[in-house]
């Protein structure tokens, strides 16, 4: 007994000495209606939080005091206090919200409504829908330019990236990409837009000044049929020199040189790898593996998988909380 008391006391001391909370990776489990929270120091799941039906896209606001969750089958975006895990309220989201992006103004969520062929803009303060914009069939990928002037919606069945002016809420360009686009990101200070195409097996690179296509990234893994190499989510290092691309049922993540657009390496991860998030110092990358129901931790420097963490069923989205 004395020993135990002593330990508690020292643990308590430690808790005061260090920042109260370790950095975390939050993962949405699509088929469990839960979030798994991974402690980055211990690489263990420290919390499981129940949320709405079929959670997919998740994102924090700029100071990490709020978590937004696309609860697709609840037809709502839920707003959570990440400290307590409590759902504070729902935002109107339009039908079947799948993915979204928070505008740099920290106030407007741009939401892809997969079943409805619209993009919904919601004001998170007034909790009202600002507008809905007609886009292609099955919108999914969402991105916002660093200057906040353009939002991209990609539509899976229409096979386009729709370029939306955030001032007028009008589409000002539509660019075709390969089959079934899933994810979009602005790259290199917003000078490029990258769009991954799951069935096409490519990432298309656009020049954002004139929306022209300037390159295409192809993937090839020894022993895996090209049809199974399906790029979905991707993340870039802070210098934007390297991109990590999740390749779905090929169970690999590609490491891409963003200058040459060549693949430098393929890293084996869990089954049907989907989305990713970096640790705050970008030394580790966490991938959600939908079919195997786990998260692979990749050491970014060595480009090696270092650990597999079991989470809920069908982990989908990932977001970092420092």
């Amino acid at each position, binding site marked *: 007994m004395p020993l135990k008391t002593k330990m508690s006391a020292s643990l308590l001391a430690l808790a005061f000495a260090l920042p109260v909370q370790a950095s975390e990776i939050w993962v949405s489990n699509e088929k469990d209606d839960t979030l798994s929270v991974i402690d980055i120091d211990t690489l263990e799941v420290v919390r499981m939080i129940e949320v709405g039906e079929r959670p997919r896209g998740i994102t924090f606001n700029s100071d990490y005091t709020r978590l937004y969750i696309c609860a697709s089958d609840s037809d709502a975006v839920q707003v959570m206090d990440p400290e307590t895990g409590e759902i504070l309220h729902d935002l109107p989201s339009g039908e079947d919200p799948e993915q979204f992006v928070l505008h740099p103004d920290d106030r407007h969520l741009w939401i892809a409504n997969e079943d409805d062929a619209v993009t919904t803009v919601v004001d998170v303060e007034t909790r009202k829908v600002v507008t809905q914009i007609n886009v292609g069939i099955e919108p999914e990928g969402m991105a916002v330019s660093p200057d906040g002037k353009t939002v991209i919606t990609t539509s899976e069945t229409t096979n*386009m990236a729709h370029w939306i002016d955030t001032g007028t809420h009008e589409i000002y360009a539509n660019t*075709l990409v390969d089959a079934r686009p899933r994810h979009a990101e602005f790259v290199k200070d917003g000078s490029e837009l990258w769009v991954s195409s799951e069935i096409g097996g490519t990432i298309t690179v656009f020049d954002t000044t004139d929306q022209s296509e300037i390159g295409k990234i192809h993937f090839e893994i020894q022993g895996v049929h090209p049809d199974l190499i399906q790029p979905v989510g991707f993340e870039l290092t802070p210098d934007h020199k390297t991109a990590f691309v999740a390749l779905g049922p090929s169970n690999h993540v590609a490491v891409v040189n963003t200058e040459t657009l060549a693949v430098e390496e393929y890293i084996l991860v869990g089954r049907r790898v989907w989305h990713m998030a970096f640790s705050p110092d970008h030394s580790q990358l966490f991938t959600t593996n939908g079919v195997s129901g786990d998260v692979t931790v990749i050491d970014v420097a060595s480009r090696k998988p270092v650990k597999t963490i079991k989470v809920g069923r069908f982990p989908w989205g990932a977001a970092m909380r420092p």
Partner: protein
Amino acid sequence: MLRTWCAIGIRACGFMACLSVMPASVRAEEIEISIGYLRLETPPRPVLSGLDPIPPARGIEGAELALKDNQTTGGFLGHQYTMDVVSLAPDGDVVAAAQTMLAGHDLVLLDMSAEALLQVVDLPSAGATLLFNVSSKAPSLRDGDCRANLFHTVPELGMEADALMQVLMTKRWTRLALIEGPSAEDAALARSYRDAAQKFGLKIVSESRWSFDTDLRRAAAREVPLFTQKFKAHDVVLVADAHDDFARYIEHNTWEPRPVAGAVGLVAEAWAPVVEQWGAAQLQSRFEDLAQRDMTAEDYAAWAAVRVIGEAVTRTGSADPAVLRDYILSDGFELAAFQGRPLSFRTWNGQMRQPIPVVNAHAQVASAPPEGFEHARNPLDTLGLDQMESDCHAFEN
């Protein structure tokens, strides 16, 4: 004649409009794409059970969903899609209806038997039209009876049989007892099972012909055990019942406790309501919103045909059937169709390559080809007639 002239006139205007707009924006090319859907209804057939009536607009509603998909995409590109549906009674004059349809449409879906289909395809006025077979699984249409302007989005019988055998092989359920129904279609189906079993090294250990005329809804529990008692040791009972007639009374009434496959139990078909992976749930729910019923394999074939047209028009910016045909047969063509792999076309007989879901009533069991079935060109070509086996020469040159 007047209709033909009108159609050409509209197209010519569209072309001129696009010429004048070109310098300002490459994307503002106005194109009108009018698709025809011609159906010759099959005469109703008496079956034992009334549990699963055939939806009256089966196939047509699949095409309608794809038309909506195309219209949305076309809206961003200035491409306008329309579809005209003509459905004839079983004794209707398919040739006359086809001539009218062909006069106004360059892109036509055909929903009819192989015999009727060949009558239409071989009309002189069909020569410049791109035709899509959305309902006939007849192997001959992919073989000696193929035509250069005829694509097939519905799988041939052999593709489904191969899919089923591949999955049984994966499970090592390799000894099969085959029950064959009395109709010509049942015989064709049984033949496809025998061929597929041989192709993948499974063994049909016993065969029986179904010839009962009792009301099986009452008698199955008594009759079927006796009927299946004589089979040699087997892993699976395979039922060739093309018309969904008696197969449903075999399952769980067999002498030995064995799974049933083929027409009931474990079934290989191009689409089923239980397919939900790869975003399929979205297609299912869009279809249900449109038709207030489940999406069938026939709906999927028609959906795919109209989506193939849409994809080819989107990528080529043309509605010219010759341009579309070339593109559809090129390496560049791929259709995302909620099956986890891109769909494309076999350049030797116009058959659409597609994974085949192998399902039971409540879940998808596998997607064929399962892992391990490889092919030099594409694993999907392990299903159905391969180039070397096909007697189709219309696509050469």
